[in-house]
């Protein structure tokens, strides 16, 4: 099979008649009269895929923890698991895995029965590169990256995530997306209607 | 008399541009911040303290040639207007004129004066 590597150079007549110009311009004029393929952002938003690496969150204790890892770590770190609160076991593995460890500020609090709970968990996202190493390091599937991608804020204080914010993000994500099948896009029909040339024939999955 | 319109347009445009320039100064905020007026150089400290230095630009001969061709075209404007009255005489005249100057253009071409003059030391 002969592969076309590049276009043959134009001959003299084609050069003086600007054939290459005309070829390019016919493409652009064709595009100008087709339908637009964008979403109107502030009014219409696409849902990011489930594995999207957005803002961080803390998953809460709700019975879906990875077993037996969660029980082992709770045992080892002497943690008091509280339903509806963060799963964090204060193991500092995320801080160890982070390329910029100063980003994390983690502390635990001793309870009266000798067990511990997480009391401080601050993440300074001004320093974060969203590489996801901390998420990989988390042994109890607590720290995760949510689908929140609109990260702009009016002050630098807003870009520091504290424990309440992390838990709120985690709760809302668990409500919305915990049971979703793990796949690239969730709104394939809408997306394919938008990108008409996208010939990907993805299999239909019913979102239970 | 015909130029009154031109002069009035000139005056109006001068006034308008001064107004547009000064409107920013009137309407805009005025905050002092240390690095606001720092010259732009990709956000890093300046390599040189000023940009007003000698600078190699490759078209200085083209500038000189432009002058000569501009004078040439200044002669051709009156010729173009009266060409039909002059007949064959005017044609031969200007043909010779352009021939001699085309020789100059060819000379420049052969001497590579029409090319971009690269800075030989820096290459």
């Amino acid at each position: 099979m002969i592969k076309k590597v590049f276009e043959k150079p134009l001959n003299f007549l084609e050069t003086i008649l600007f054939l290459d110009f005309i070829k390019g311009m016919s493409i652009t004029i064709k595009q100008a009269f087709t339908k637009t393929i964008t979403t109107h952002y502030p009014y219409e938003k696409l849902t990011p895929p489930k594995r999207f690496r957005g803002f961080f969150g803390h998953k809460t204790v709700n019975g879906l923890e990875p077993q037996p890892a969660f029980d082992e770590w709770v045992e080892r770190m002497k943690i008091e698991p509280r339903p509806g609160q963060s799963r964090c076991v204060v193991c500092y593995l995320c801080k160890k895995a982070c390329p910029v460890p100063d980003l994390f500020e983690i502390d635990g609090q001793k309870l009266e029965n000798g067990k511990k709970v997480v009391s401080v968990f601050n993440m300074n996202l001004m320093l974060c590169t969203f590489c996801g190493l901390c998420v990989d390091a988390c042994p109890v599937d607590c720290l995760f990256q949510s689908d929140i991608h609109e990260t702009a804020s009016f002050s630098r204080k807003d870009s520091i995530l504290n424990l309440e914010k992390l838990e709120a993000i985690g709760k809302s994500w668990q409500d919305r997306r915990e049971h979703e099948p793990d796949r690239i896009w969730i709104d394939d029909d809408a997306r394919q209607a938008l990108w008409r040339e996208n010939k990907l024939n993805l299999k239909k999955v019913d979102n239970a | 008399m015909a130029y009154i319109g031109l002069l009035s347009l000139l005056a109006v445009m001068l006034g308008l541009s001064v107004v547009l320039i000064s409107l920013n100064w009137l309407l805009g905020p005025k905050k002092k911040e240390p690095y606001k007026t720092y010259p732009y150089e990709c956000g890093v400290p300046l390599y040189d303290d000023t940009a007003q230095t000698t600078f190699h630009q490759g078209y200085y001969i083209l500038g000189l040639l432009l002058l000569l061709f501009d004078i040439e075209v200044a002669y051709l404007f009156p010729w173009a207007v009266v060409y039909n009255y002059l007949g064959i005489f005017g044609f031969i005249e200007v043909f010779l004129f352009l021939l001699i100057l085309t020789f100059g253009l060819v000379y420049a071409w052969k001497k590579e004066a029409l090319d971009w003059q690269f800075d030989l030391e820096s290459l």
Partner: protein
Amino acid sequence: MLNQIAFYLFGSISIICGLGVVSASNPIYVVLWLLGALIAISGIFFSAGAELLGALQLMVYVVAIAVFYILIITAVPWRKLHKNEQHNRLIGVTVLPFIALLYVEAFIVGISGVSITKNKIIETITKNYGNAEVIGIKLFSTYFWAFELMSVLLLISMIGAILLGRKEEKTYD
């Protein structure tokens, strides 16, 4: 009447700009004053009715000064210039009497009433034909020899510009 007002207006502008040329110390300002002076001079041409000459002056000199200006921006050693603040205004002033002689001459000519247009021939011609037509016909019939010589002159200057401007590697080996 209107023409006279325009003449005095442009004349005074050109004198002011000329003074600016000799007194400014920054080469950029010198060039800008020169531009102003030449535009004012083309205004004088317009007010005298020599429209073609004025327009060509505007076109040629504007371009010429633009080239000059670019060369100044790129070739003047600004650092040295800023260090060396002294400007030879004194020498400029000593030249003034000699320039004043020219003005005296112009004044005498004006008093004695020398006129180059006898019987207003040119005015009657320009009424019937445009400015460009008159110049064209005169230039390409009466003065065609001078016109052809112009081309040779331009050729010589072109060759000169190339020889002076272009640095060839093996010129004097």
